[in-house]
């Protein structure tokens, strides 16, 4: 009986799966076009899956092994089952392999089940709770129906008169398994992640973020430029269908593991953002409906079930809409610090930050709804080329006594020192002065643009004002094009990122270095000598735009090591560093939460027992120094280096008549 039933079951499931796939693909194709090379993408899939994805999943060995056993077992079992039971190729070898595969899947599913006994908060419940049972049903069912194939059970056992009941039960189990695994995969069950996830990997919008066989690390963190010339293209994303099709596909790949939720600083601060929920909302939006079925942690302070959307309906309710609610509230989008912790953790390689900025672009460019100080900052940028609205001619005021060499005079130098908007900030001016002191001590041939420099456009871009970003970027690129230099050095990771990763698309390609990288190189080249560190314990805070955005975790630590400092690492450091709360314009949009992100970060510092937290970002410095009753002092790496400099006395006297000025700071 089973011999008849099984092929029917299998091919029915496959057929339904195929119908579901078509329907699912149609949902994705509501999105805007985004050209991809289908064959190349599919060819790259195995490597992307086995190397890049498992690089992320491998951070949790238990889950990684569980997934290998379960998913590997399933894929093998599914193929073999089609051959053995679907097409009736009752080869004992294939049967044996099928037994092995289903056994492996069963073992894996036991671990999946165990994880679901007392699941961590970040995991979504709902249908995901039945998944381990379905996995077991499939694996046990397939295992049992295959036993006769290899002769471990008499062929006729299930053929006998009274055994039809047993066969029926077995068929039911297999049907359940097939239903979850094949039908559910394309009709929106938990297994959807395998289908969408695989295609997402193949057709990822950022092919360049994957490693290459030649040893390329793979990193793609710069935002994609909007084509402002194309009048047909929407300015950002208003409705789900405004995303590109492969972005929609990406959302669908989400496994709701909640790793993003666990690392999101805004979520931890009780601000109304949960990256997982946001992605799920996009899934709801592309299919149409309400978020009532969502079975994970909500946006803090926003109960589930009150929001709904449709592919062609606005994601954020325009003010005119009654109830004021659509798919997502604006404050959710403005809570993001763009720290990329979610993207870094996502095993499905979903690009949350891209999506958020896409939606912000619409709110800012089409609706003018940048909240709180946002509009003022953007106005300032438009009027003065800096977010603080300072007189542009005062950008070099802090250095009036330093006689900084100007690009306008020298035209050609080794290093162009990019000041950033920290040049207007009294705290960051100390860092800049320290950096100048270090460059001079190492006799670096450098110059600054001075008042020719403009804001890099980072804040404008992350607040969604792509037009202002591009205007600033193009003018900066034009200025830089007038001069010759080998590299740009900056103490601002945001400028570093934008100049290095985002100007390229607009025609500005530069070798940009963070000052910690540059100082590490100077030290390695023997151009700097330090007195040994005598201060207290030091920890290091990785700026998001240096670490996660640009992969620079080592240079700052090497500099600290060169100073004789043994870094007491915080629990969350390196690629898992917790954001200071200062990125993405978050301090400007200032969405209230239950606590402040920098307070949490300074608490991390406190727990490390450090008396000094070394930083490498003006924004981090400002945020962390703003913490009341902090237990540690915040010092930029440049300051620590400048303090430890051993100046050669010979150099001192040679300078004499003109007495090159040093930073006057008296460090109290």
């Amino acid at each position, binding site marked *: 009986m089973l011999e008849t039933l099984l092929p029917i079951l299998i091919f029915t499931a496959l057929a339904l799966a195929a119908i579901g796939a078509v329907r699912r693909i149609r949902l994705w194709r509501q999105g805007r076009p985004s050209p991809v090379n289908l064959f190349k993408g599919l060819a790259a899939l195995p490597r992307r899956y086995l190397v890049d994805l498992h690089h992320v999943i491998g951070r949790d060995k238990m889950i990684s092994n569980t997934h290998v056993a379960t998913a590997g077992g399933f894929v093998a079992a599914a193929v073999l089952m089609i051959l053995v039971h679907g097409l009736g190729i009752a080869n004992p070898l294939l049967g044996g392999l099928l037994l092995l595969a289903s056994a492996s899947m069963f073992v894996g599913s036991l671990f999946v089940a165990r994880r679901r006994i007392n699941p961590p908060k970040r995991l979504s419940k709902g249908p995901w709770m039945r998944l381990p049972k379905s996995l077991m049903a499939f694996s046990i069912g397939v295992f049992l129906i295959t036993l006769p194939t290899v002769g471990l059970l008499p062929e006729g056992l299930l053929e006998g008169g009274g055994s039809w009941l047993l066969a029926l039960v077995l068929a039911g189990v297999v049907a359940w398994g097939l239903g979850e695994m094949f039908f559910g995969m394309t009709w929106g069950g938990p297994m959807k992640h395998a289908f969408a996830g695989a295609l997402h990997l193949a057709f990822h919008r950022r092919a360049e973020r994957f490693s290459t066989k030649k040893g390329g690390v793979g990193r793609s963190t710069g935002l994609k430029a909007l084509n402002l010339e194309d009048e047909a293209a929407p300015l950002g994303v208003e409705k789900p269908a405004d995303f590109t099709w492969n972005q929609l596909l990406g959302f669908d790949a989400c496994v709701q593991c909640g790793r993003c939720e666990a690392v999101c600083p805004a979520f931890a601060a009780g601000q109304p953002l949960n990256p997982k929920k946001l992605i799920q909302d996009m899934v709801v939006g592309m299919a149409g409906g309400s978020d009532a079925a969502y079975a994970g942690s909500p946006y803090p302070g926003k109960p589930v079930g009150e929001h709904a959307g449709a592919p062609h309906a606005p994601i954020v309710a325009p003010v005119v809409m009654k109830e004021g609610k659509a798919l997502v509230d604006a404050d959710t989008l403005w809570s993001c610090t763009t720290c990329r912790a979610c993207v870094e953790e996502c095993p499905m390689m979903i690009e949350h930050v891209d999506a958020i900025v896409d939606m912000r672009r619409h709110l800012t460019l089409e609706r003018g709804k940048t909240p709180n100080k946002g509009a003022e900052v953007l106005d300032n940028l438009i009027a003065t080329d800096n977010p603080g609205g300072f007189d542009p001619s005062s950008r070099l005021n802090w250095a009036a*006594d330093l006689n900084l060499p100007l690009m306008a005079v020298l035209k050609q130098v080794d290093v162009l020192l990019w000041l950033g908007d920290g040049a207007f900030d009294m705290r960051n001016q100390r860092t800049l002065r320290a950096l100048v002191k270090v460059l001079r001590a190492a006799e670096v041939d450098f110059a600054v643009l001075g008042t020719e420099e403009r804001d890099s456009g980072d804040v404008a871009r992350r607040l969604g004002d792509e037009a202002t970003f591009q205007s600033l970027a193009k003018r900066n690129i034009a200025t830089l094009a007038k001069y010759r230099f080998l590299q740009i050095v900056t103490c601002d990771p945001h400028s570093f990122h934008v100049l290095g990763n985002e100007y390229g698309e607009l025609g500005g390609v530069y070798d940009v270095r963070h000052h910690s990288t540059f100082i590490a190189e100077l030290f390695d080249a023997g151009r700097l000598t330090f007195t040994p560190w005598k201060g207290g314990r030091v920890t290091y805070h990785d700026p998001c735009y240096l670490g996660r955005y640009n992969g620079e975790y080592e240079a700052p630590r090497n500099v600290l090591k060169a100073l004789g400092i043994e870094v007491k690492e915080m629990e969350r450091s390196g690629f898992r560093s917790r954001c200071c709360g200062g990125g993405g314009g978050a301090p400007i949009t200032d969405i209230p939460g239950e606590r402040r992100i920098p307070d949490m970060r300074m608490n991390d510092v406190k727990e490390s027992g450090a008396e000094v937290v070394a930083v490498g970002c003006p924004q981090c410095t400002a945020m962390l120094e703003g913490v009341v009753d902090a237990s540690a002092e915040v010092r930029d790496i440049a300051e620590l280096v400048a303090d430890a400099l051993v100046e050669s006395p010979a150099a001192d006297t040679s300078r004499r008549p003109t007495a090159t000025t040093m930073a006057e700071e008296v460090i109290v």
Partner: protein
Amino acid sequence: MAFDAIFEPIEIGKLTIRNRVVSTAHAEVHATDGGMTTERYVRYYEEKAKGGCGLCICGGSSVVSIDSPQGWWSSVNLSTDRIIPHFQNLADAVHKHGGKIMIQITHMGRRSRWDGFDWSTLLSPSGIREPVHRSTCKTIEEEDIWRIVGDFAQAARRAKEGGLDGVELSAVHQHLIDQFWSPRVNKREDEWGGSFENRMRFGMEVLKAVRAEVGDDFCVGMRICGDEFHPDGLSHDDMKQIAAYYDATGIVDFFGVIGSGCDTHNTLANVIPNMSYPPEPFLHLAAGIKEVVNVPVIHAQNIKDPNQAQRILKGGYVDLVGMTRAHIADPHLIAKIKMGQIDQIKQCVGANYCIDRQYQGLDVLCIQNAATSREYMGLPHIIEKTEGAKRKIVVVGGGPGGMEAARVAAERGHDVTLFEAADALGGQITIAAQAPQRDQIAGITRWFQLELARLKVDLRLGTRADEATLLDLRPDIVVLATGGQPFLSQHPEWGYSENAEESLVVSTWDILSGKVAPGKNVLIYDAICEFSGVSAADFLADKGAKVEIVTDDIKPGAAVGGTTFPTYYRSLYEKEVIMTSDLMLHKVYREGDGLVAVLENEYTGALEERVVDQVVVENGVRPDEALYYALKEQSRNKGQVDLEALYAIQPQPCLVDESGEEGEGFLLFRLGDCTAPRNTHAAIYDALRICKDF
């Protein structure tokens, strides 16, 4: 940006100044060594540059000519080429930190003394005597004029060759240039006096000669007053005319403007406004000059606070603010603004200890900052943390000495407890601040309060420390700064008793602190003639009492400095306080409801009586030594301070014993008035030099 106006650079001539804050010219009185700048001088200005000051104009009243006596205030001597290498040291020290430095140059004319050094014949346009210095002078001759014009030019050349950034010609404070300007002093009828152009001629010749000598790439400015405040002197309109006249030459790079002439005691007090003045009292005069000139204007006078400076600059009244006493109190003022440590700025309180010492020919020191001008000795403005053991330090007494001791010990990283019997910190400062116009002296305490809180010193206020309490804390070091008590028991005839009911006299502390209610008809006997007596008189008169203040010294308030006694006198005369000198308090006795004070003339012995209802005696302070003697024998060092180490700013040897180890038991030091009654600066200096090595 909160202080953007302060931190906007400015061009003066061809010189870029990094911010708008200037330490204006004042006599440092430690240029010594024949007018050659010394290590002390260099380190004093280097500290300001290191602290971020934009421009220092050094050498108030530095002389250009041999007959303008240099020695009285040890000013810088630019009449010889010997000064050039000294200037090079000074310029390098300031430039190294990004600061700029100029010097004020002058011929003081009649405003000096002739009775010393070279016994110079002083000069002035019409030979009229100067009252403040009691100096007579000769009427200047044409030959002198041209010699001095040449001397100015040579002095400017020396400043330039020495690497300084500019010179400021002093035409203020009634020096020779403004002696020519002022019709009050210039009565000449030749081409150097009379008409406006004639009175301007000397200054113009000086300016032209200086500019011709130094060329265009060297700053030349003028310091002028905004109004002499004399009916027969130069008015504000006159000064505007003068400023515009010189500005029109196009060869003046800046004007420094201050309010008030200063050739009388009363006008002199305006020039360096003490704590009785409002903030920036004469800004309007400088703003008036700014209206008529095309070059930057500097103004200094009671600008002490960064917010005030920002407000003045933002308002556009002047281009640069002088914060000179503010820098004497805290040479790191600018750095602290930049570091966001505004609360840590030691703000000038206008006690004028600095300038009042200067007018006595003493080196300029700060009442509350003992490190200022002692940088060369190694006294630090920033106390480094100790690399040695963390000690338990107990300080007794919350007056200036005790507060400084606690601050310094805490900055060293020690565990510090401070006991103060009163409910608040301050000691005698708290009492002094009760007098009318003297409340700002409490700023000294306020700074310490903030610092001690920041440094987490364990403050035990309202707690009188006894031997047992102290030793219970198992201190490594005990510092006694218990001060003293008014010394009323010296003469039994005064009828002082510890029982307040029976005592016939009360102290100025009793009056100022409010412990004793003011009488209606009060005699103050002031044997000391410093602040307490006149403060009590002012306080009582302010409460409506009829007051006579009597002293056996030459006059009441005789020991109060030259920029401070005039403001007391203004107030006392206005309130009809009678000031009587040359009488000693012989005896006090009760008669009916009242008191009779018997006074004895110092010179004739004649007795006279006053019938009053209250007798207040100011007879100084007697040290409070009880706790010291209770602890002395138990201490490791028997309470002794090693004087050689103290004066040489070296660590007290007992801090480490011969073996290099710390011994058993505690060390005991006492400082301030509980050793011998002196003043606030003495107590703070004691505390700093003893505690800096803890």
